[in-house]
């Protein structure tokens, strides 16, 4: 389909819808028993992160946490290769070695999803040093959850970014929970932007139900970051479902869920687009339908794709052309096999 021209909000709607459809298919992949493991973290409810990814430019880089599918789709990922990776298949983004929590793509600037809470955050400091030193004009963005607000390495990284005037942004997707812990049970003071300010960053907080509000904040933070004034953006969102595929959410009430899910960035965007006549209901339905088809295809692709060959296991530990790990069977064979004895 072709989008109505000059309609960035509509494009963002489309991306958000694609994210949601994708995540729904990840759920299916799991239910069909085709995912690699059950550590699948869906970003449904957090699609307004597109407000941030849309404020980035080609060449900009980023790292994500374990709940990073949406961010990556926002930066242009191929859902079929993503889904194949989540299924642990050879033609996934990472050859079936990384899975949902470790997707990356050099070409699109994705420096890697991380299963260590906070693990990917300092990498943007290093990227920031690269871009500062080469005056490349790029920025680097770390996406992470509210849980990472408790990791010390975040503050070390913020301090370095401010001290060295690095072109970076720390983007906290606050979905109100770190696993089963609501944010008021993990933070002595919930004013996260105040923390960022105290470390010398430009800090903002945006309503995660409103992708355009997120985008406005992100745009101005990105512009400042590109100028060497690093920023912090908190997207105030809601995690619609459990932490991972096995979580029955005993730690939150149904009322809490209903209230949280009412803050749906897709519904909100849809309503606003209709209100402002930026798109007809038919346009939006078409977008939704296209997303569904696209993600069905991605799912089918992943299920049909080949698993990696066993020999690939020893590849990529080190760069090609350098000494590779010796397979254990080879080591034992050299001891056990013929000719190995005096």
């Amino acid at each position, binding site marked *: 389909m072709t989008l109505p021209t000059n309609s960035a909000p509509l494009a963002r709607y489309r991306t958000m819808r694609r994210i949601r459809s994708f995540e729904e298919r990840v759920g299916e992949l799991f239910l069909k028993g085709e995912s*690699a*493991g*059950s*550590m699948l973290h869906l970003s449904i409810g957090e699609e307004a992160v597109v407000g941030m990814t849309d404020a980035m430019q080609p060449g900009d880089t980023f790292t994500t946490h374990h709940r990073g599918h949406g961010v990556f789709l926002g930066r242009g990922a191929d859902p079929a290769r993503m889904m194949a990776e989540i299924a*642990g*298949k050879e033609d996934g983004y990472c050859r*079936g*070695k*990384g*899975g949902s*929590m*470790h997707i990356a793509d050099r070409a699109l600037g994705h420096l890697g999803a*991380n*299963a*260590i*809470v*906070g*693990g990917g955050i300092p990498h943007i400091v290093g990227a920031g040093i690269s871009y500062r030193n080469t005056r490349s004009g790029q920025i680097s963005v770390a996406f992470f959850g509210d*849980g*990472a607000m*408790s*990791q*010390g390495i975040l503050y070390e990284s913020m301090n370095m970014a401010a001290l060295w005037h690095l072109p970076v942004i720390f983007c906290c997707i606050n979905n109100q929970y*770190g*696993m*089963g*812990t609501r944010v008021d*049970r*993990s*933070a002595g003071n919930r004013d996260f932007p105040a923390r960022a300010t105290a470390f010398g960053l430009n800090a903002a907080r945006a309503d995660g139900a409103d992708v355009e509000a997120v985008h406005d904040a992100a745009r101005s933070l990105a512009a400042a970051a590109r100028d060497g004034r690093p920023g912090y953006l908190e997207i105030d969102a809601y995690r619609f479902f459990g932490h991972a595929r096995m979580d029955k959410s*005993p*730690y939150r009430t149904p009322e809490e869920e209903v209230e949280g899910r009412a803050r749906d960035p897709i519904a909100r965007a849809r309503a606003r687009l209709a209100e402002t006549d930026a798109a007809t209901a038919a346009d939006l339905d078409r977008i939704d339908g296209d997303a569904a088809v696209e993600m069905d295809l991605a799912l089918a692709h992943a299920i049909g794709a080949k*698993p*990696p060959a*066993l020999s*690939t*296991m*020893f590849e990529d*530990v080190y760069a090609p052309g350098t000494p590779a*790990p*010796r*397979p*254990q*069977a080879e080591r*034992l*064979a050299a*001891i*056990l*096999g*013929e000719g190995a004895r005096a």
Partner: protein
Amino acid sequence: MTETTYRDAIRQALLDAMQADPSVILIGEEVGLYGGAYGVTKGLIDLFGAERVIDAPISEPAIVGAAVGAAMTGLRPVAELMYVDFIGMTMDQLANQAAKSRYMFGGQIGVPMVLRTQGGTGRSAAAQHSQSLEAWVLHTPGLRLVMPATVNDAYHLLRQSLTQPDPVVFIEHKGLYTMKGDLDVATPDGAWGQPVIRRDGHDLVILSYSRMLHESLAAAERLAESGVDACVIDLRCLNPMDEAPLIEAVKRTGRAMVVTEGVVTGSVASDIAARLTEVCFDWLEEPILRVGGEDIPIPVSPLLERASIPTATLIHDTALWLVTRKAPPWAA
């Protein structure tokens, strides 16, 4: 004697210890309301309250550090790392603080804490949630190290850990939580620091621990079918560890191998093999062989994951060779 799971045996040990000793507290991520990422601490917060079952923010270094301070001041904390893979963030608090305080301070300040965590493969949890990192701990004087393989040990080794005056790292295996077995709360499988012979045999010794014990026992069953009689020893405690029964068994059979799920290079298996070789050399008919995890990060693909760690088949084939010098097909 009751049948229960490894998970519930650990929970029972925590419960009994907390009931017996008000100074025992739990601190870790999701140990309270959520009941533990693997359900081990379910319900304990209801029984003992939030002051003794402390849901911590995602701050592994400070969790371990707080446990150190609590232990120094009269509590007996059980800190939990949700995955042993996160131990890297805490190695300073663990190895420079918990392990060394008693020594640096001339014996004045002990750190009677337990660090509970779990490791290993089996859930396609990929490179950062599947490791076996006990070798780092073994290399750190001042830390005790325990890795239970059975339901009864899960209970008793944890209770014993909670009587130790020094820090104990207690590593469970995620693949064992649902394993069933007999729990006899009155009778431990063995004393603290004692290896236990899980299957006696006179042809060779297979030394193992944690989940690999079960692969080793399975291999031993298959070896029996080939007429090879393997002695399988569960190391249980890696520090302290009474080497005498190991030495006895190795000298008796003259053939031994060590099996670990951890990456084989620099592993616990290397260390045990080297130690035993030193003292048993004259009795050895063959070198002590190491079978362990491949020297790679753990891949997410379930296929590759499974292939990256030892199987009963590999253990069997290696053992068979040790006894018969019959090379397995893959070693031709």
